[in-house]
């Protein structure tokens, strides 16, 4: 392995995109994701890539759509209100099965919100976000290392499933610096035989966001259902930490998982048996992580920096076997490890 370097989360994510073979970025700056644009604005031209600051987020996602249709590895990055503006284009990309990466370094609260860390875009990210019946593959890093590693994985999964992927992070993960180790250089991205490029050797090809017949539309949706079922089976990712003998299982992702893990460590030192299930893929949600938890655990506590979104998915996964309660608030509320400790002890 290589030497550890110190990087900001947003910069690690950007450099990882380059290592993954992404050479095209289209976006519009917004705090707290702006370092991604700043970084790629100087790095992409150095290596013959394209960085383009578009006139709006709506334009950016449609440029992403075009580059993806041409078979390129391509990404955009924004923060909550900007990602809302992109939803129409993301839905179109899901329908046209165009692999691309959308990064959401979220803001807090509905509306313009502000920039403290928050997790209030979970529903938007995991339920599709735009119109229609679709899913994004959504990965949630909890360290600078994972800002890099999961970005590379997101590009691979997007190509594997021909589906848009999303990294869901927050300003804290974007702004903080931690040591990072670059693994081996990832393999070159696959050549995309389905793309509309390289027409010199074959007939013209069309990629449509909507088939031109009712039957075709049904067929597309059946295909999407089958594809999502495969992803649900094969791509659930999570980390279980100290759960084997845990009486209380905390469920948290991203920044909330960092804070919760500290609370759990502290409680363990005092003799309380708590553990953590940390979803890494938010969609597909890692329901498999909850198999058999009722043999030791008496309850689940879901810690979120929102007023309670992922708690729905935990309840579905636990399916009434043990009680599930939530702790959280949107709008920039950040729990301290002590607050999480107190809440665990109420179990």
């Amino acid at each position: 392995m290589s030497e550890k370097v110190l990087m900001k989360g947003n910069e690690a994510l950007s450099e990882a995109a380059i290592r993954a073979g992404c050479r095209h970025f289209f976006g519009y700056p917004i705090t707290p994701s702006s370092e991604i644009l700043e970084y790629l604005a100087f790095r992409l031209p150095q290596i013959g890539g394209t960085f383009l600051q578009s006139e709006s987020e709506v334009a950016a996602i449609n440029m992403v759509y075009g580059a993806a249709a041409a078979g390129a590895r391509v990404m955009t990055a924004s923060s909550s209100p900007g990602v809302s503006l992109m939803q129409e284009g993301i839905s179109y990309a899901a329908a046209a099965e165009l692999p691309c990466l959308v990064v959401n370094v979220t803001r807090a609260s509905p509306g313009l919100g502000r920039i403290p860390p928050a997790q209030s875009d979970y529903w938007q990210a995991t339920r599709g976000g735009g119109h229609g019946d679709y899913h994004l593959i959504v990965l949630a890093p909890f360290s600078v290392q994972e800002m890099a590693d999961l970005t590379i994985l997101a590009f691979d999964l997007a190509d594997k499933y021909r589906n848009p992927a999303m990294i869901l992070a927050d300003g804290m993960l974007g702004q903080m610096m931690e040591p990072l180790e670059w693994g081996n250089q990832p393999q070159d991205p696959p050549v995309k035989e389905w793309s509309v490029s390289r027409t010199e050797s074959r007939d013209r090809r069309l990629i449509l966001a909507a088939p031109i017949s009712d039957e075709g539309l049904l067929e597309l949706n059946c295909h999407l259902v089958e594809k999502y079922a495969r992803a649900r089976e094969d791509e659930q990712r999570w980390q279980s930490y100290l759960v084997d003998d845990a009486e209380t299982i905390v469920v948290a992702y991203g920044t909330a998982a960092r804070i919760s893990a500290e609370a759990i460590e502290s409680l363990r030192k005092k003799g309380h048996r708590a553990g953590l299930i940390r979803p890494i893929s938010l969609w597909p949600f890692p329901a498999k992580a909850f198999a058999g938890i009722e043999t030791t655990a008496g309850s689940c506590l879901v810690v979120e920096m929102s007023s309670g979104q992922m708690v729905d998915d935990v309840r579905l996964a636990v399916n009434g076997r043990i009680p599930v309660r939530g702790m959280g608030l949107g709008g920039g509320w950040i729990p301290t490890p002590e607050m999480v400790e107190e809440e665990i002890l109420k179990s």
Partner: protein
Amino acid sequence: MLEQVLIAGFGGQGVLFIGQLLAYAGLKEGLEVLWLPSYGPEMRGGTANCISIISTDKIWSPIVPRPKSLIAMNWPSLDKFEPKVVPDGVLVANSSLIERDIQRHDLRAYAVPASGVAQDLGNVRVSNMVALGAYVGATGVVSSEAVLSSLIKMLGDRKASLVDVNASAFRRGYEMTVGSRGQSNKVDIH
């Protein structure tokens, strides 16, 4: 060992820089490190602060409600953060810009004329390095060698001409406090 130091001052005083430098030095020593700036819409001349965490064990929470140490580069920062430091923590205050006494009696506190020393060295902008030196001298959280070699790396070729004055400032601060490392009384340095 788990050290959490909050570094605060005016924008432009280099508080983010010394926070990062400390993280680099910790990394060089093989320790776990994390650096988190307070980010937000700040004006030039506004306030800036960051937290650096250095630990022998894995660092989980980036949230530090009550830091173990504080470097206060200006008066508003001391007013704001002095009450938050944990008892028996370390406080380095830039006494050149803070015309009041440190109020806490349960801290290992150092009133260091960082801006004055920097001025003596011919560059007031290295006051941050004087304060960092005093902090590292007082705590020994990382070695001065790790700080100085990380400094060269951080400044790079483009700012290599600034290494000497920054290193001198660091050493001046370091020498002011290293003798009292481990003592628990308040130290005023003039």
